[in-house]
């Protein structure tokens, strides 16, 4: 995440526990992986109206085990392609977590995720790791990223991180 994206602000779309990658992007659309194709079907089987309502900067909020199921990177890619600025959940399934970090989609683990409701206006400060619910006047703390993952997100994903390290090794 670069300096100009160290904050995010948008409206929350709230879902429950165990949001799986099949409802984030159904497998019937995995015959292609272009961003516009994935964005057009994001969250289709859990919230068919999502793509008509979501605006750039908005935030998806889940309960526990967000992103469980298949390893499809198409899931975080679809979410990012809709302009979603961050996913907040009580916990994430591990492959979704890796994939989000690896493509540079900010995700935050937050014990208070259940306090956020659909339509709440949320502001996130990634530097301090705080989430402000402007609608309800609450402030939530999040789990900070380990240093290694913070570096990956800072350079925009794992591919950039590898490329930078490869250049470093050649010097």
């Amino acid at each position, binding site marked *: 995440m670069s300096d100009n994206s160290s904050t995010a602000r948008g409206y929350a779309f709230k879902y429950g526990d165990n949001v799986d990658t099949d409802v984030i992007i159904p497998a019937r659309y995995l015959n292609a992986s272009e961003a516009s194709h994935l964005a057009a079907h994001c969250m289709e089987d859990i919230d068919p109206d999502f793509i008509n309502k979501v605006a750039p900067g908005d935030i998806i909020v889940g309960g526990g085990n967000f992103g469980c*199921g298949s390893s499809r990177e198409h899931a975080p890619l679809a979410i990012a392609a809709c302009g979603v600025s961050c996913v907040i959940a009580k916990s994430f399934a*591990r492959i979704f977590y*890796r994939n989000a970090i690896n493509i540079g989609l900010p995700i935050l683990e937050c014990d208070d995720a259940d306090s956020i409701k659909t339509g709440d206006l949320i502001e996130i400060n990634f530097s301090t790791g705080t989430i402000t619910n402007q609608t309800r006047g609450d402030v939530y703390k999040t789990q900070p990223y380990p240093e290694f993952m913070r570096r990956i997100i800072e350079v925009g994903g794992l591919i950039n991180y590898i490329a930078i390290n490869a250049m470093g090794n050649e010097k």
Partner: protein
Amino acid sequence: MGLTATQKILAAHCGLAKIRPGQLIEARIDLAMGNDVTAPVAIREFNKLDMGVFDPNKIALVPDHFTPNKDVKSADNCKFMRDFAWSNNIAHYFELGEMGIEHCLLPEKGLVAPGETIIGADSHTCTYGALGAFATGVGSTDLACAMATGKLWFKAPQAIRVVLIGKPQRFVSGKDIILHIIGLIGVDGARYMSMEFCGEGLRRLTIDDRFTIANMAIEVGGKNAFFPVDDVTIEYLRSRVDRDYEVVTPDDDAVYERELVIDLSRLRPTVSFPHLPSNTKMIDDAKGTAIDQVVIGSCTNGRITDLRIAAAIIKGKKIASHLRVIIIPGTQSIYMQALDEGLIKSFVQAGCVFSTPTCGPCLGGHMGVLAKGERALSTTNRNFVGRMGHPESEVYLCSPAVAAASSLTGFITDPADVSAGPDATNKQAEAAL
């Protein structure tokens, strides 16, 4: 403080004597795998790196999800992957006639050995833990980095120790064991953790039972599964793996987050109801639910033992009218075995269809997609909303024996309630191997 088997394998692959749970490490990869859904995304990321592949002999690419190509977009994806495989001299690219469902195919081809570290851009890569390897599912960008560097970052996992005791009753298979465990601990019960299996009950399990159990570790959020190497494992590896490998065992004082003891003798055939694999019922509470379609196959239950059990129940009978029964062998080799043993004839004469290997219907891709309001009973691994087709369709998960018995009646049926030949048991199927 001792290490789990998984921690020992990972430590050996990052050149450390010890690692601690939660530690971020960079581990050497022995095999990196992708399929026609995940590899095209990985290849596009890989191409941004301006690096060659780290070792063309340690990459496997398997077109299995939307193959034989179901439409133009799928064909484009497969062609993109094939062109990459050819231009980079990828040793383990499997064209249609020699392919199979990746997690049935790679062990069969000898590409998995004990002690190895394998990543696959498919969540069910955890299947290979059945052979005492560390194997875990990752995403496409992970695959791209592994193909370029031969290394990948991991968080060293904690583990759940699963002790299997007792002897399973008739018609209780690996699928029933893992569905029972998923029902017990929930779909995030092993999130970020290894599931390490042990106990005297292991010797009752065929290698195919173990593949099925390891396969569904991801359905409890697990990072990987691990089975210790024993005579059954070595027998499976004998004709397939001729390179040296290291048999890893957990330390006696390994620290586990949690221990589960499963008495196999108390389990019954088990069914997962919509829309979570953890929504399990024993057959006595599940039977009677009417179904429209049965699928027997997938990376979970598409192996020869699975087909033998199903054929033993179906042979000489007719499937219920108005029911569609689709049977899919895991690999071309399993297809040939089923042909040689007359299993295909039994299926087709009963009114089933027998397909070429494909992941197809498991993920609602093709070859058996469900309409609105339809209900499938399937030996696959997930029953999420919309998994096999329309978001208002339903998927029930079960073993091949339950699927076969239900094929004869048109509703969920206890295999013990249909007259099956004496060979329709795990033990007999194993003896026939």
